[in-house]
């Protein structure tokens, strides 16, 4: 309808209204004849006029006004605060400007209310817990959390300091700040972030919009941890946080949905600094789909600030050092960024004070080496460790001023804090003392966290991992250790208990199952190491049963853990002489690692485990006297290990594995103590190679019991295939000395005792051959002395060795007339061996037999010795005959048996 028509309509409307009601329709029809549009318009308007009860517009406005004024006069209240207007909206709630009702002095605050629907008991509890932690953040550059509570309807809210000012980047422009001023501002921000990190709080959503500058010019960080509080975490079952709302400033790992770490905050700080000095954001993802974002992260590099800052008057100043500083913080790989916000700030300071900056490409290994060098010699007084979230493996050192009490303050475990040792530290030689330091601080910390984890399977799993790693540091058999084996067992058991509880609540949680396997693995290995072999077997078999239903899940960490258990289980079976079981389990390990190594050729852990599997299969085959098969498997293992060692010369554990592998090859080639293929020369060569490797490791870290023991043992093996002579004696003595050093570090290691006993015995034998009976007796005595107390463990090798050594000593003592010593030894030997397997019994009976036989011909003879000797030796021979029929009877056994037979024959002739 055009304006003229409208005009006409209006006139007609008025005219019609002047007429009495009944006449109006006719009038309109007449006037609008031909113009339907006009007629319809006027009629409808007239109809509406009739319907309008005078003032219908008035009424509406009135109602709206009333409601409005009611609202403003009685603004919604939240606790003692009165909400005034909305400031903004977030993911889970809205922020309002509010003022306190009862004060004379009106202070503006910002209140964040959680959205209705987000008030489940779970979230509320977490909200409360986190609020308490956040309330303790008192820093001039962090907007303070003032209060919190729940409204009448039960919605949680947080009250924060209100900062009436723009974002830091806007402020910098408006105030005309130059480069030095901006950098100084930035350092204040770093100090705030660092402060929070030291309180174990991560911001997760640092961006210019969260950094406001009030009228006093002081920049303040907002939303500390609130982002974590108000993200819809409850929605997903796992604990990755929902992607941050503005990916432009978030770290790549956060964008991928991985848990945030302090290094993620470092990245975000980097992007803020970038924008402060260039005016633009380093990476822009606006309007991109998640897939496109992922791609952009990997393909688009960040433009150096000096290039991006075109237009700023200080653009040229950015080139060089400051470029490097900013880019370092923005590295995609967290390990390459600054290790902390404090370090970041420090480099900025260096730039401002014209000192050389640290930002340089740094490899992880390089940093680890620095870490180790700083702590060589042990004492970094008062150092404490920053504990990172699971998934983010970083350990840094901070000066801890109040280490203990600060640890006690930490209660928040929503995304558990996991204690970890920097991977590189573990593998570098010389890092033992550094680890001692970390362990000491870790124990008290973890114990304080148990209560908080209860009832939450996720938290329990994480905490269990922490205990496991602590146990590793305390006494892991497979890595460098400090010998604190009983402490380690406690830690593992603690971990196991937590995991069992977690699995009760969440039985198909693969992560928990994998961790349970790892813990069992460690515990079983520890049990074997300290002589509780039956316990070890049980631990491993139980773990295998737990894991088997999950093997087909294809989950790689779980399969690796299972493979590792099979390896250790086969070792445990060997310790109890169940070689069939050992072969079965080691074959399973070989299968698993074979598959894994094939599917993941770059995975060094899989490949080194594969090598170990070969070795274990070989060891089991040796027990079953399948010697050539064993040699083949050992050789495969060595080949695999040499390949790995070639690319990783520094790796201590790899070196050790290689050493062991050569030892196995040598054993099967010519170790007289076991069944062998009879190639003594080749065996000697292999043993010497092993000893060479062991010596390298020993010299790198003399405080490390494992390294010392290995060297001592390696030397003892060399001597077993040497020809008699002074060289052999020399090696034996050296071996004994080194083994003695190892036992001094940790006396609970049974394995060491076995070797020490054996070497001492061999030394005695060598010395006997040279005619030096006195020294030989000392050696045998030493052997008996070491082995004696360990006999109660029931472990076959030590019992056998004890008896053998006792026999030698008893004979010698018998010959030299030391009657009581000789007979006492005989008694002890019988005690040790009569309840054991057949051949062990045979050996045991032989000892008093030889003792009496020797005594009979000595100055200390007594009547009845002859009969006693006969009796015992006959018993022994009978047992040997029975033992010959049993599997595993080898040449060495035959020799022992022959000895007894000969002695018996001589006696019977007299």
């Amino acid at each position, binding site marked *: 309808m055009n304006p003229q028509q409208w005009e006409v309509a209006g006139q007609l409307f008025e005219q019609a209204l002047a007429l009495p009601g009944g006449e109006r329709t006719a009038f309109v029809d007449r006037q609008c004849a031909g113009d339907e549009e006009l007629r319809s318009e006027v009629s409808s308007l007239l109809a*509406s006029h009739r319907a309008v009860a005078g003032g219908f517009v008035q009424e509406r406005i009135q109602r709206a006004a009333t409601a409005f004024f009611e*609202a403003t006069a009685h603004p919604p209240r939240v606790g003692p605060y009165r909400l005034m207007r909305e400031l903004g909206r977030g993911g889970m709630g809205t922020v309002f400007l509010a003022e306190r009702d009862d004060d004379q002095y009106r202070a503006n605050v910002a209140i964040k209310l959680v959205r209705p629907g987000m008030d489940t008991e779970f979230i509320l509890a977490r909200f409360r817990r986190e609020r308490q932690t956040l309330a303790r953040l008192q820093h001039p550059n962090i907007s303070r959390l003032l209060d919190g509570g729940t409204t009448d309807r039960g919605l949680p809210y947080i009250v924060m300091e209100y900062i009436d000012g723009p974002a830091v980047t806007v402020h910098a422009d408006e105030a005309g700040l130059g480069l030095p001023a901006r950098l100084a501002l930035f350092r204040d921000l770093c100090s705030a972030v660092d402060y929070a990190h030291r309180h174990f709080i991560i911001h997760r959503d640092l961006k210019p919009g969260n950094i406001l500058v009030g009228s006093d010019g002081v920049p303040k960080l907002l939303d500390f941890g609130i982002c974590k509080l108000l993200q819809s975490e409850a929605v997903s079952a796992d604990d990755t946080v929902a992607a941050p709302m503005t990916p432009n400033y978030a770290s790549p790992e956060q964008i991928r949905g991985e848990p945030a770490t302090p290094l993620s905050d470092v990245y975000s700080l980097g992007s803020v600094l970038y924008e402060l000095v260039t005016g633009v954001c380093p990476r822009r993802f606006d309007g991109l789909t998640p897939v496109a974002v992922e791609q952009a992260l990997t393909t688009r590099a960040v433009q150096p600030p000096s290039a991006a800052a075109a237009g700023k008057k200080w653009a040229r100043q950015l080139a060089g050092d400051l470029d490097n500083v900013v880019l370092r913080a923005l590295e995609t790989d967290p390990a390459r960024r600054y290790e902390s916000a404090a370090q970041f700030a420090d480099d900025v300071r260096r730039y401002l004070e014209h000192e050389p900056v640290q930002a340089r490409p740094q490899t992880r290994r390089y940093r680890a080496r620095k870490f180790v060098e700083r702590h060589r010699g042990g004492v970094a007084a008062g150092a404490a460790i920053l504990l990172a979230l699971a998934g983010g493996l970083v350990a840094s050192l901070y000066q801890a001023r109040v280490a203990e009490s600060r640890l006690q303050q930490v209660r928040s475990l929503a995304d558990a804090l996991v204690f970890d040792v920097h991977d590189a530290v573990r593998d570098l030689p010389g890092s033992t003392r550094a680890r001692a330091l970390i362990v000491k601080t870790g124990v008290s910390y973890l114990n304080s966290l148990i209560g908080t984890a209860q009832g939450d399977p996720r938290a329990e799993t994480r905490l269990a991992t922490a205990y496991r790693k602590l146990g590793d540091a305390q006494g892991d058999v497979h890595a460098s250790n400090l010998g604190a084996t009983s402490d380690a067992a406690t830690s593992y058991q603690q971990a196991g208990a937590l995991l069992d509880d977690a699995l009760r609540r969440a039985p198909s949680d693969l992560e928990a199952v994998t961790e349970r396997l790892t813990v069992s693995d460690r515990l079983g290995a520890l049990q074997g190491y300290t002589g509780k072999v039956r316990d070890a077997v049980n631990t491993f078999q139980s773990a295998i049963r737990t894991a088997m239903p999950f093997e087909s899940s294809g989950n790689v960490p779980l399969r690796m853990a299972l493979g590792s258990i099979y390896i250790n289980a086969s070792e445990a079976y060997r310790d109890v002489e169940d070689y069939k079981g050992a072969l079965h389990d080691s074959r399973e390990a070989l299968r698993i690692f074979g598959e894994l190594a094939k599917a993941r050729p770059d995975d060094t852990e899989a490949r080194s485990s594969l090598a170990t599997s070969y070795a274990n299969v070989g060891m089991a085959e040796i027990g079953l006297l399948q010697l050539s098969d064993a040699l083949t498997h050992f050789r495969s293992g060595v080949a695999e290990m040499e390949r790995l060692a070639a690319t990783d010369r520094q790796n201590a554990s790899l070196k050790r594995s290689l050493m062991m592998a050569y030892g196995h090859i040598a054993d099967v080639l010519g170790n007289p103590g076991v069944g062998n293929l009879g190639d003594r020369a080749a065996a000697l060569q292999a043993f010497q190679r092993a000893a060479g490797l062991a010596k390298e490791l020993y010299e790198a870290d003399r405080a490390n019991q494992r390294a010392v023991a290995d060297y001592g043992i390696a030397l003892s093996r060399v001597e077993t295939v040497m020809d008699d002579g002074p060289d052999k004696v020399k090696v034996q003595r050296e071996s004994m000395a080194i083994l003695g050093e190892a036992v001094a570090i940790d006396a609970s290691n049974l394995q060491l005792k076995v070797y020490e006993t054996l070497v001492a015995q061999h030394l005695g034998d060598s010395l006997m051959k040279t005619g030096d009976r006195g020294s030989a007796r000392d050696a045998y005595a030493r052997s008996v002395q070491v082995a004696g107390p360990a006999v109660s463990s029931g472990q076959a090798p030590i019992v056998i060795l004890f008896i053998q050594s006792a026999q030698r000593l008893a004979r010698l003592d018998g010959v030299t007339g030391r009657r009581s010593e000789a007979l006492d030894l005989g008694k002890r030997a019988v005690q040790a061996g009569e309840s054991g397997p057949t051949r062990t019994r045979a050996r045991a009976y032989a000892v008093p037999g030889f003792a009496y036989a020797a005594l009979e011909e000595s100055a200390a003879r007594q009547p009845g010795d002859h009969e006693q000797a006969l009796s015992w030796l006959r018993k022994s021979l009978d047992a040997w005959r029975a033992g010959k029929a049993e599997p595993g009877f080898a040449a060495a056994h035959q020799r022992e048996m022959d000895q007894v037979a000969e002695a018996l024959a001589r006696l019977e002739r007299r």
Partner: protein
Amino acid sequence: MDPTPQVTQLLRDLRLGDAQAVEALIPIVYGELRKLAAHYLRDERAALTLQPTALVNEAYIRLVAQDMPDWEGRSHFFGVAAHLMRQILVDHARRHRSQKRGGGVAAVTLEEAIAFAPSKSDDIIALDEALTRLAAEDERKARVIELRFFGGMTADEAAKALNISVATVGREQRLAEAWLHRELTRSA
């Protein structure tokens, strides 16, 4: 902080054609109105008979401390105030409208604290939209509605503000009301 010089300046700007001055005025007027409302509504009964217009008058007086004998100025202020009143009421209604229309994005966190039935906020919003459509067809009629109902002017005052006769005001108002009613019932 004394808002008076600001307001006066803004009013001048407005007269000179600066439309953005309206935006700047809103928070100031809002603040004043809030205080006034609080004062008036301490009496429960007063709330029921509250005339927004009376409040606007008072707000005016408080904001512009001295009498403004200048008719044009006064008239102008009330014209602006009327418009502001409309803006404020609609804005408030929009923000507190319950999101029953699915897709529930933003929170109505104050909903629980305000006894504000949905229909009420929809009413004023619909009226505002209809009024905007009317203004597109016939600006003067929309202005009359605004001045008379949001601004609370008498027919006389409106006539003077719009430079038309009182009779014309009456006619404009009648037609405008009919039109609005038709629009609002048609779309309901």
